[in-house]
């Protein structure tokens, strides 16, 4: 597993204590960015799919109502 490099990064605001926070390497950040991009694309595709299904389902009802 890729190990996150951790350094002491004191948090001054709202904190009385210095805590360790992970420092992400450029490679880790790039990987996270790529994963987030794929996730965003998947969500957009899902929105498109939901829209298409809604049109299909409602479209059928419109045809029935017009026929009546």
């Amino acid at each position: 597993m890729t190990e996150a490099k951790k350094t002491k990064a004191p948090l001054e605001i709202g904190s009385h204590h210095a805590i360790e926070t992970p420092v992400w390497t450029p490679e880790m950040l790039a990987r996270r960015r790529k994963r987030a991009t794929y996730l965003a694309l998947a969500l957009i595709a899902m929105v498109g799919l939901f829209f298409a299904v809604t049109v299909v389902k409602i479209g059928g009802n419109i045809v029935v109502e017009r026929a009546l």
Partner: protein
Amino acid sequence: MSDASIDQSKSIPSVTDDFGTAGDYIELLKPRVMSLVVFTGLSGLVCAPGTIHPVIAFVALLCIAVGAGASGALNMWFDADIDARMERTKGRPIPTGRVTPEGALAFGTTLSIASVLIMGLMVNVVAGILLAVTIAFYVFVYTMWLKRSTPQNIVIGGAAGAFPPMIGWAAVTGSVSLESIALFAIIFMWTPPHFWALAMFRSEDYRAVNVPMLPVVAGNAETRRQILLYSVLLMPITALPVYFGFAGAIYALTAFMGGAVFLALAFTIWRRGDADVEFKLAKRLFAFSILYLFLLFAVLIVEQGLGAFIPIAGLVS
């Protein structure tokens, strides 16, 4: 509170160390298994009587694919301990540390719930219920219970892999019928010879992690006998689509010829018990079993979907 009591760095790694790429998460879905599941699901969609809007059919197949993949991810999460010690599985995302177990669990659970809900809401309730049963059966019954407790694990657990054509059928008709059960039965009866052939040449892996596969518990001689027995039982079941009238002459010919080769391979394994050739024969049967199942369902799709259906006189109503 002292500084020592607030060592927050220890609570951070479980979140920050999950550096899995999109490819690692896709690997969790077992894409090769998923493709066969989608394929058999498509056959159920195509063979079912009635019509379905192409968009709804696409949603149904997507849900089958995602549901199958999600159960694969949950299987990898639960089996991470034994996967790490088996040659065949040690390169999977969790044992290699590319994805954390928590990440895999969250991923699998989210996709399972989403696929079932979308199937139920957008396709129909019966298809949604069948998908939920499939996922639950694979994760709870096979993975968590049967796999590590009985040599009959893949006989009963095979039901999970057999559901997709039924789901596809239900997506069109909204019901379960004898015809869809016939498609279920083909995969159900095909699974034991297929997996036992694999287990024969991977038995050392299974023995090392105490998974009671048949070759480990009962030995290769008994496994060879069981392979032949289930292969013989499979043959009449592959004829059921012809009997029910939704498969035609091309399917009948494929099932007959493919079945003959399948039986010949199973018979050869059973008869030639010598240790030096049994692994080779088992590998051959394993590879052919995949081709055989693929061919059977491909022909069903071609016959029904592409208008190549040639009825067999006297059998078709």
